[in-house]
């Protein structure tokens, strides 16, 4: 197991090297000179040159790259060109927020999707199944920011149960943290739940037709055991793939929902950085997003190994 993990981590290294190149290089392709941008429209040529030198933009590319990679590994992602804050600090503030949001959304989506998928697969073709299928089609089709606005309208403005926007750190007030998290997490979770339900329902229906499910019933196992053990372990495999993608997407792509609910997550930082061409921040965020994706993939592979002994290393 340990060897497998080590091997998997080692194989991601070339990917990471490639990604750092691309992240670093992409920024050079963006039209416009950051030094000019930072210096502002009234700056003289000398001022621009000074800024360029301060940022190291005048040195050879490989040197710039090497500097960037080594300091990134030391946890120094540079300084924002605008706020002059350390990029690592901005990301360090936003990442836990995004992680809490993503975690809550994922939890909500699973709590909805798993029972719904099981019931509609077992009662295939009945009205329960039709309602669930319609529900998940809607959940996939409806834009999440719109759903978010509707939730705000209902639960905050009309019913007054939950705060409409904002975020309170857990350390400051756990209850407020939770109440602020519910609506954005629900908004994100529903889209995820819809996708997971559809995926899981399909795979459960497929597994139910397998001979080994008949064997499990022929042994006299109770329905709960047949479905909960024999069906679910096999039917979960495609779900894990979907979940892996969802986590990655949730951490980097909750931009609109963060905006709607004023949640200071990575998405907010990303928007600010992109609109101002804040290169070090963009680089930092992409790097983090890639790391998250790599870690998620690793986790997905580990879970695969658990679910499917055939792919497990021996």
């Amino acid at each position, binding site marked *: 197991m340990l060897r497998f993990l080590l091997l998997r981590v080692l194989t991601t290294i070339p990917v990471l090297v490639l990604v750092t190149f691309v992240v670093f290089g992409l920024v050079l392709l963006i039209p416009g000179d950051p030094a000019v941008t930072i210096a502002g429209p009234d700056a003289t040529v000398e001022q621009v040159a000074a800024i360029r030198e301060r940022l190291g933009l005048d040195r050879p590319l490989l040197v710039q790259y090497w500097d960037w990679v080594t300091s990134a590994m030391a946890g120094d992602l540079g300084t924002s060109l605008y706020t002059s804050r350390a990029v690592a600090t901005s990301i360090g503030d936003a990442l836990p927020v995004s992680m809490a949001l993503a975690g809550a959304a994922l939890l909500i989506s699973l709590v909805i999707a798993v029972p719904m998928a099981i019931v509609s697969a077992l009662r295939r073709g009945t009205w329960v199944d039709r309602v669930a299928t319609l529900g998940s089609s809607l959940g996939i089709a409806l834009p999440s920011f719109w759903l978010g606005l509707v939730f705000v309208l209902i639960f905050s403005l009309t019913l007054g149960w939950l705060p409409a926007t904002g975020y309170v750190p857990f350390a400051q007030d756990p209850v407020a943290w939770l109440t602020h998290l519910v609506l954005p997490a629900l908004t994100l979770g529903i889209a995820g739940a819809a996708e997971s339900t559809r995926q899981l329902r399909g795979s459960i229906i497929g597994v139910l037709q397998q001979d080994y499910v*008949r*064997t499990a*019933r022929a*042994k*006299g*196992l*109770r329905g709960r*055991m047949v479905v909960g053990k024999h069906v679910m372990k096999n039917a979960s495999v495609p779900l894990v793939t979907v979940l892996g993608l969802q986590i990655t997407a949730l951490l980097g792509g909750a931009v609109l929902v963060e905006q709607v609910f004023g949640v200071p997550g990575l998405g907010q930082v990303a928007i600010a950085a992109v609109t101002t061409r804040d290169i070090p921040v963009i680089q930092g965020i992409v790097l983090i997003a890639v790391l998250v994706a790599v870690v998620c993939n690793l986790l997905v592979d580990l879970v695969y190994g658990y679910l499917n*002994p*055939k792919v497990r290393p021996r």
Partner: protein
Amino acid sequence: MTRTLPVARTAATTTLEVEDLVVEVLTEDGWATVVDGVSFSLGRGETLGIVGESGSGKSVTCLSIAGLMPPRQTRVRAGTLRLLGQDLTALDQRQMSDIRGPKIAMIFQEPMSSLNPAFTVGDQIAEVLRRHEGLSRKESKARAIELLDRVGVPNPARRFGQYPFEFSGGMRQRVMIAIALACTPDIIIADEPTTALDVTVQAQILELLREIQREHGMSVIFITHDLGVVADVCDRVLVMYAGQIVEGAPLDELFEDPQHPYMEGLLAAMPRMDQRTDALVSIPGHPPQVGAFPAGCRFHPRCAYVRPQCTDGAAPPLEQAGPTHTTRCLRHLELTLRGTT
């Protein structure tokens, strides 16, 4: 409906009695009958063969006995099933699941797909014991290893922790037998257990089944296409055609003196050791589709002895052709059919 005139047997020696079983499946054109008035009884320690071409209703008959036909798409329309005097048709799903394992166990044809790929074979044996005998994890593991050993899996303690993909087809079928044997059931239903295996492995598995049956004196229902296998293992045989039993007799009697033209055809088509089988004889035509069974004798479109009286009205009744021999042929008294000698 007609029924087999039961071979005289006292309650103590009969494990299972099936009477007038009718099973329907849902097709595009509505409910269609696939098993039509099947009746038979199974004696203690007896091996009863069920033969017949594909689609004749052999599996449906047995799955219905075990309550394993999928609900909603299929239904048992009529019939009584008595297992050791207990009426199975009166039981609900939950009560049926208590029966499966300790009283009726099944072995299926596909050893490759009948075991769950995601669990160790050991766990798949042990869970039966935990479910029905309330054994702990440790106890059930010890018993499962004994069972693996009993069915001839070498290195049982190590094999316990391995997954189905690490086993060959024959070894998996041994595992299936271990699962079936776990709670020493009264009846084992083996649905073409050796069809998917190659000949040498097939012989080993048959030998194992025979041994186990001798050891525990259980009753076995053995479904197969292969008359050679039937001759090897069965005491008595039922022949099914288009959802009905068309002939039933003790093994030797059936082979030497068939009373139904369909059985004569099956025997003629049987490849034999003592003759070159280049010119494989087979019954011309195909069995009828579900929902389109012919009027009169269902076999008449393919029968060489067909007469006008065979072609309409209800299906012929199952008649006694001897003390322990039944047939569903109107002309069995006038015909002299060829068996094996």
